[in-house]
């Protein structure tokens, strides 16, 4: 299976403290990949390094981009495998390549309707000039209409289409989480990064979430990389898991392998006295 993301020797430190230390892993096409580790292991830092919110001190983040997408953006791949290195690129350019993320503490716009929130996810696809939007020329209107339909599809897909015209601010937490996921779908993603999607959800909502994540992969044919504390979810939904501790690579494998791994046990539960 071809890979969509390859993180190579990633390192970043804050004030001399290594948050991520020489970490490498890769995510295959249409794979659901979990990144786990105890609190403070540097999981979200890894995400932020991939999406360029943080500039890593060392290492590279290779991302496979569809040739058509690159051609449309008039860009060239950085290596022979048709990949680009995300490190050093502006944060707002990352979504262009088909890599999109959600946030741990749901970042949606309360003053806008649900459908407008989803449309933000399609921001980079709008081609009409600023002037034609200001004057609401036919081209801008046609574009707006087309993307609005696409946004409605994403909302319907996540089962919140009937709320499309309501303000996002007044919605319950579960709806806001779904809304944030719907927004990622607008970008025609190759890889979606979910930062603790189950945080704050109850048990039955979490079960629904696992199904939703699989559905997203099936329907949108993309890979999903998630950080999650809910082990039930991670073990049930992930194809492969990478465990880290204090920013260092610990273990990698299927859920069953990870559950058996002594190093993972140690990191989570502390050293066993009786061994």
């Amino acid at each position, binding site marked *: 299976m071809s890979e969509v993301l390859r993180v190579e020797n990633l390192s970043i430190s804050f004030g001399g403290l290594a948050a991520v230390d020489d970490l490498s892993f890769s995510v295959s096409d249409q794979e659901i990949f979990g990144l786990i580790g105890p609190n403070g292991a540097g999981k979200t830092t890894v995400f932020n390094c991939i999406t360029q*919110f943080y500039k890593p001190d060392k290492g590279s983040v290779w991302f496979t981009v569809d040739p058509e997408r690159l051609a449309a953006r008039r860009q060239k791949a950085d290596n022979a495998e048709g990949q680009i290195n995300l490190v050093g690129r502006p944060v*707002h350019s990352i979504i262009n390549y088909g890599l999109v*993320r959600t*946030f741990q503490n749901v*970042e949606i716009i309360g003053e806008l309707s649900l459908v407008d929130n989803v449309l933000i996810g399609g*921001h980079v696809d709008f081609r009409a000039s600023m002037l034609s*939007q200001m004057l609401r020329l036919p081209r801008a209107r046609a574009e*707006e209409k087309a993307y609005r339909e696409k946004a409605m599809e994403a909302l319907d897909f996540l089962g919140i289409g009937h*709320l499309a015209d309501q303000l996002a601010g007044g919605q319950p937490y*579960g709806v806001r989480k779904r809304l944030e996921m719907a927004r990622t779908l607008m970008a025609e993603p190759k890889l979606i990064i979910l930062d603790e999607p189950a945080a704050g959800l109850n048990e039955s909502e979490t079960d629904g979430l696992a199904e939703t994540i699989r559905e997203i992969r099936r329907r949108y044919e993309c890979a999903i990389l998630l950080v999650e504390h809910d082990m039930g979810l991670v073990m049930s939904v992930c194809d492969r898991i990478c465990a880290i501790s204090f920013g260092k690579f610990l273990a990698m494998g299927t859920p069953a392998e990870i559950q058996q791994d002594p190093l993972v046990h140690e990191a989570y539960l502390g050293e066993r006295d009786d061994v």
Partner: protein
Amino acid sequence: MTSTWSAAARRALKNSHVQFLILGAALLLLPVLSANGIIKTSTLSTLGFVLIYAIVAMGLNLLLGYSGLISLGTAGFMGLGAYIAAYVQDNLRLGFWVALLAALVIPTIIGILVGVVSLRVRSIYLAIATLCISEILLKTFEQAEWFTRGTAGKQSTFPVIFGIHTDRRFMFSVIVIALVLIMMLTHNIVHGHLGRALHAMRSSEVAAQAMGVNVLKYKLFAFAMATLYAGLGGALYLFFLRSSYPSSWNLFLSLNVIAMVVVGGLRSIFGTLAGAFVIFAVPELVLKELPVVGDIPGLPYIFSGILIVVVIMFFPQGLKGLADRVRHALTPRPPSVTKDAAVVQEATR
């Protein structure tokens, strides 16, 4: 047949652009009333300034309301527009249209240049940076006598538009047309792709960037639009009043424009217009006529100061929010609300 007509009419009335046109048509009656002596010329003048300040405040609303950026430099850019309009019309004798265009373009370009430097800093630092720019402009207005005639004040004339020698009533109509166009433009900006980007930026810069919004570009856009509106307001001010003094373009004006946006309600076009009326016209038309109170020096500033405090404490949504609450109280609740709530619970179960 009549029912389909009334349905079509009701739908048209919900269209914001139609509402703006109706408002414009109603405002165009004012010069006629003034010509017939039904309203005083001084009242018409006051209302003209209300509309000019409303245009400027709508620019600041794009900045403060939608983008979450603050500017204390509005007065400087408005004054710049006024002096450029006067200079191009009276010194260079290039006519109304060139003067208007220059008063739009030059402040906007300067605004963009200022933005490139100052938009890298945030909140209070941006306020200080824009205040400095405004003070520099104010000092320039006082010193550059070839351009502004300094503290003696720049005198101008009513412009000639399409060969017509205008007067104050005619200029009022020009202001109304400009206002309606600006309201439509603002509406288009905020209800679409651009507006969403501004919303995203205000809500969370981090999330906006993750969604591909180039934050600096949209900050510059909002800043440029705000200076464009201020330049237009300045030019209209000059053509309406036919004079400009440096003392008009001080910090108090910038603060008053902020008051208009806050009192009217952030992110509301009609609210901003109402805010401009309350902040500028109420002291002029009502308070000054009152016994005793009317003689207090600096009354308008006291009034807008108290109003800002009251609005922020009790009506954070401003006049717009107040109007919404009244409308909400007056409309009977549709029975489907409870059903919707059930659906929400179902979806989030």
